[in-house]
């Protein structure tokens, strides 16, 4: 599903967010990216979401090269990805239902279909009773769950989450992570960036650790040395 071959991302001014990173995440798998803030977790996710382009190396999504993706095709690639942000990125001028149904509107679903799928997604995150509420009236945990519902409403093949539990207490964080695990169990590929090591330890999923842009731990198949290590 995701392949990085010697990917380097250098920003203007010479700051290197990713240095020579190679990794491979197969379809239907779930992994965590860990590391201190500034280690390059977000940059890695942004390259997959076509927000940033690698300076060097190749990034592939489903064997499609992301480096050379023309601008007009970007939206169609993104429709296969559900993205969850630490700060939710909800639109505060419309209610929960309208926030969650936005990806379906964009993809041109019919109104009946939109209503059905939106309610299904809200039900999955336990917020069906809040569909008419405005996001501002919800707690942080609820807002994050609205963000998750919006990310999964169009049934993407890949879920990316950047510090989804950043502002939540441990109990809520566990609930959120469990939602990701549940999605993975029904076949969705999931990649979560988090520094919440205690939580990750409990979940028993492969881990990628970055330090100052360098891969220092990779539980996934190691494609950098062309070794046949597989799951370690």
């Amino acid at each position, binding site marked *: 599903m995701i392949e990085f071959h010697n990917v380097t991302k250098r920003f203007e001014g010479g700051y290197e967010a990713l240095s020579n990173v190679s990794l491979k995440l197969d379809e239907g798998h779930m992994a965590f990216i860990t590391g201190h803030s500034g280690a390059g977790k977000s940059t890695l996710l942004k390259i997959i*979401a076509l*927000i940033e382009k690698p300076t060097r190396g190749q990034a592939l999504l*489903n064997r*499609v090269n992301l480096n050379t993706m023309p601008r*007009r095709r970007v*939206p*169609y*690639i*993104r*429709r*296969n*990805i559900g*993205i969850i942000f630490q700060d939710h*990125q909800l*639109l505060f*001028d419309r209610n929960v239902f309208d926030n969650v149904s*936005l*990806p379906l*509107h*964009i*993809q*041109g*679903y*019919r*109104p009946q279909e939109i209503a059905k799928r939106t309610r299904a997604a809200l039900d999955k995150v336990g917020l069906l009773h809040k569909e008419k509420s405005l996001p501002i009236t919800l707690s942080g945990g609820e807002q994050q769950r609205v963000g998750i519902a*919006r*990310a999964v409403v169009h*049934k993407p*093949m890949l879920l990316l989450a950047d510090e989804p539990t950043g502002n939540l207490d441990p109990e809520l964080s566990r609930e959120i992570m469990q939602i990701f695990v549940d999605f993975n169990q029904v076949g969705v590929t999931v990649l979560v960036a988090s520094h919440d090591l205690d939580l990750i330890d409990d979940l028993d999923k492969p881990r990628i650790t970055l330090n100052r842009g360098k891969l220092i731990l990779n539980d996934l198949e190691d494609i950098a040395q062309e070794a046949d290590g597989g799951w370690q």
Partner: protein
Amino acid sequence: MAGSNIRRKKLATSNRISAYLLHHLQSLMFSLRKIYAAPATTIMTVAVIGITLSLPGGFYLFLKNIDAISGDFRSSSQISLFLDLELSEKQARALDKKISKMELVDSTRFISRDKSLEEFRQDSGFGKSIDTLSSNPLPHTIIVEPGEADTFAVRNLLNSLQAMPEVKIAKLDTEWLERLYTIIEIARRSVVIITVLFSCAVLLIIGNTIRLDIQNRYQEIIVTKLIGATDAFIRRPFLYGGVWYGLLGGIISWLIVEIGYLAISGPLGRLNLLYKSDMNLITFSFHDFIILITSSTLLGLAGSWIAVARHLNQIEPT
């Protein structure tokens, strides 16, 4: 992207088209709701557009009225015939009768030498000086009123009258008319220039309003881009916003011009009484109204298109 292909196939083509039309309708309603939600901003923008467009609109109407009035003048051009001094009054009257029966001639008026002198004595104030003249220097005069005829036919009539041996000078009183037409032509071109300039102003006003609108909805644009919205999808509500501004601005400008002409119609009525004329004020016809509204709407669309093309592409998630 095997998964997406399967999913896309599930949406039949007819569904896609109806969903596309539905989104157009939704964008239309969304932009209308936004206008409704921020009445103060909308009213100000629309008022500025309305006032701006009312200027060329008003000038156009003014020109249309002048044109109508000058059309009346065109048919009222007169030919003055100054006859040979040797001609007796009897001969002159016979000629007057002959001319009045000519084709193209509507009516004639005969002014004898003595009457001309009498009129001149009274009107000019040179009474005493005229008394010192030994003989009357003025000729018999015939004023010819051509019937309904174009300028060319009137010129032909003038030539044939000039050719008569009894006629010393035939004069068509059109010089002032030609001056008037030149002035009208200048006014007409000025209206074109004003229209072009003020249309550009409207383009800029709408462009700027849409630009601010784009800035205000920065976050929304970022989010929709991140979840796979195409540029066309994001563009649509802004374009409809521009269309609404243009349409409402056009209606306001129409109202302004109509009210302005209502205000003028009072004094004009009095002027009509004083001049015993029956000038009727021409206002916008239905045709004019449609043209005004259509052009202002198109200006709105063009203005928002410029803003969207310039600013929307610059907004990318980081």
